[in-house]
Structures are given as structure tokens and as C-alpha cells.
């Protein structure tokens, strides 16, 4: 009678043991997968992030080259080199990167150099990228656009001091990708009697760097005419060149 009663208890204890084994095994497998997948996922994410980051550098380097007088075709050549380099640099399978140059009314072969005479100058390079990674259970298809743009805007006015003597105030604002950016070098010139002059040679010259991409200049000189023509040439910290001209009215 006692043995038969214990049979039931043994059955329940055995069931508990089996349940515990199932749960422990499940927890172990889960934890093992979690660690393996998380580290591989993180590494792959960083690799892809690195490809995107370096693609931006390739576009920027091309813009530096073209904005300093290099051929626009250098952009496409650099992208082709980068595509080949990336394809050969992935050791875990297949990695295809395809770049397409932006083509629109404002871009030609992915490049826009709009150094207008209206106080606004733009140097820009743009390309669309398609990244395809495959192998070892990984399949990634990802597209991204890289648009690197340096833009300079010039504005200002002058105060007439009499006898063609003018006190000129100029404001220069630089942007990278739409955000205020610091300049590497800025060359400001004004047109006087048909030749471009450097205001630094004047005793009245003053420059204020606001530290946020805005630069203000003042100077006094005898400049004939009803407006003052100024030209600004900028190299941003990346080395991208951009310039613009404008006519400053009487303030």
C-alpha cells in the first residue's frame, strides 16, 4: 500500500526533474546564442558603419580635388577605386558596393560647383550607394546617399563717409551639410578701380571670428561707385574650396 502511494510521488518528482532539465537546457542554449549573435551582429554593424563613413571620406576627398580645379571625372574614378577596394576587403563572404553619381539639374556627374555672383557659393558632391553583403548566414542590402556640401554666404553694406570714402562691413557665413562650420582659410577682397584689393593692407581693417562659422570684417577705403564689389574665397577645414562674389549696397 505504502509502495504504491510512493509510486505517485516518484512520478511527480520525475516530472519535476524532467521539467527542470528542459528549462535549464533552453536557458543555456538561449544564452549561448545570445552571446554569439550579439557579438557577430555588433561587428557586422560596425563594419557597415565603417563602409558608410569611409564612403563619405571618398566623396569629400573627391570634392576637395574637383573644387581645387581637378577634373569632375576624378569623382567617378575615386568611387570606382573604392568599390574595388571594398569588394576585396571583406573576408567573410561577398561584399558589393555600387555607387551612382547624382544627376539632376543642379548636379553634373555628381558634382555641383555653383560659385555665383549673388553672394552665395556652393561646392557639393553627391552619390547614391548600394551595399550588398552576403555569406555565412548574413544577407544585407542597404542603400544610402552621401551628399557633402560646403556653402558660403556673403552679405553686408557700406556707409558713405563722403568723397568716395566708404566704411565697408562684410559678413561671411560658412556651412557644411547645412550646419555652421569653421573655415580653414578665408580670403576677402574688394574691387577698386578694376583690380581686386586685399583689405588687410588697410590700417582700418578689422576681423571678428564669432567661432560659429560667422566672420565679420570692416574696413575703410576710397572706392568710387555706388556699390562695393567683394569676393570671398574659402577653404573649409576639410579642404573644400568655395567662393562667391556680391555687390554691397549703401547701408
Amino acid at each position, binding site marked *: 500500500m505504502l509502495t504504491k502511494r510512493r*509510486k505517485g510521488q516518484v512520478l511527480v518528482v*520525475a516530472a519535476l526533474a524532467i521539467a527542470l532539465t*528542459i528549462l535549464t537546457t533552453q536557458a543555456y542554449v538561449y544564452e549561448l546564442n545570445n552571446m554569439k549573435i550579439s557579438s557577430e551582429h555588433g*561587428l557586422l554593424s560596425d563594419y557597415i558603419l565603417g563602409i558608410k563613413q*569611409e*564612403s563619405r*571620406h571618398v566623396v569629400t576627398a573627391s570634392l576637395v*580635388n574637383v573644387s581645387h580645379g581637378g577634373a569632375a571625372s576624378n569623382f567617378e574614378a575615386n568611387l570606382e*577605386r573604392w568599390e574595388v577596394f*571594398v569588394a576585396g576587403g571583406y573576408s567573410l563572404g561577398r561584399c558589393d558596393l555600387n555607387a551612382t553619381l547624382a544627376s539632376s539639374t543642379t548636379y553634373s556627374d555628381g558634382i555641383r560647383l555653383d560659385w555665383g555672383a549673388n553672394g552665395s557659393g556652393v561646392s557639393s558632391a553627391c552619390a547614391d550607394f548600394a551595399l550588398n553583403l552576403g555569406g555565412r548566414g548574413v544577407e544585407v542590402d542597404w542603400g544610402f546617399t552621401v551628399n557633402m556640401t560646403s556653402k558660403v554666404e556673403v552679405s553686408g553694406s557700406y556707409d558713405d563717409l563722403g568723397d568716395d570714402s566708404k566704411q565697408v562691413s562684410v559678413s561671411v557665413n560658412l556651412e557644411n551639410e547645412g550646419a555652421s562650420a569653421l573655415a580653414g582659410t578665408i580670403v576677402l577682397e574688394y574691387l577698386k578701380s578694376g583690380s581686386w584689393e586685399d583689405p588687410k593692407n588697410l590700417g582700418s581693417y578689422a576681423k571678428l571670428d564669432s567661432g560659429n562659422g560667422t566672420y565679420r570684417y570692416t574696413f575703410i577705403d576710397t572706392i568710387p561707385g555706388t556699390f562695393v564689389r567683394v569676393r570671398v574665397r574659402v577653404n573649409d577645414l576639410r579642404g573644400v574650396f568655395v567662393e562667391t562674389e556680391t555687390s554691397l549696397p549703401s547701408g
Partner: protein
Amino acid sequence: MTRRGAVHTLDAFLAASIIAMALLYAAQTPRERDYIGEETLKGEGMQALVQLNGNGTLGRLVEARSWGELEQVLRIALPGGVSFNLTVFDEFGSPLNNVTISNGGLVGRTVESLEYLLAVESGVCPLYRVRLQLGG
């Protein structure tokens, strides 16, 4: 006799319920991972290189062949206790650094290696392959 049979039935039912509940719970274990786990040496190395070249620092140091400065930057960027050895190759696979870029040789139970492709923001757009070996 009838009561004993009923007790056995209850025991069997209880045992079956326990196993069924265990199976049910195991099946409900989430398939989604939170991706927060132990970082591997490779992962730490890749993160360090990506961050270092976020503003082009790595590229500038390689372009200037500033191997000593590059070593110092890596010492700061990599976690303490991780040993490293860095080799820089040009676009065509030739090694560039004529000195060892390391914090004293690879030490540790595990040694892992990774490669990072580097583009420098200069006019001719130089491309480099950086091989980072890590020990820890």
C-alpha cells in the same frame, strides 16, 4: 480501490501538467535578441577604428606616416588590458609602417585580427587597409 485509482490519476495529471508547463514556457522564450552581450576583441577593435576615423583622425595620421602618434591614439582608444599590433597597407597591399605600432607585443589567451578600410580626405583620395591584431 476507487480512491486509490483517483489518486493515481491525479498524480499522473500533476506530472503531465508540470512537463506541459515546462514545454510551454520553453516554447515562449523570446526569439528576439537584445544584442547586449559580451563584446569580442574584434568588436572592440572595430569600434575603436570607426570612432577614430569619424573625424578623419586615423586617415590623417596614416597619411602623415605619424606612426608614433598613431600608437598613442590607439593606446587611448582601446580598452586597458588589450594588447595590439597594427599594420598599415597601401591600396595595392604593400605594408607601409617601417616601425612596429604596438603596445608591447600581443599578449593574452585570445588573439584576434580584423581589417579596416580607410579613405583619406585629401585631394588624391588615398586608400589604405589597416590590419589590427588584438590580444586579451
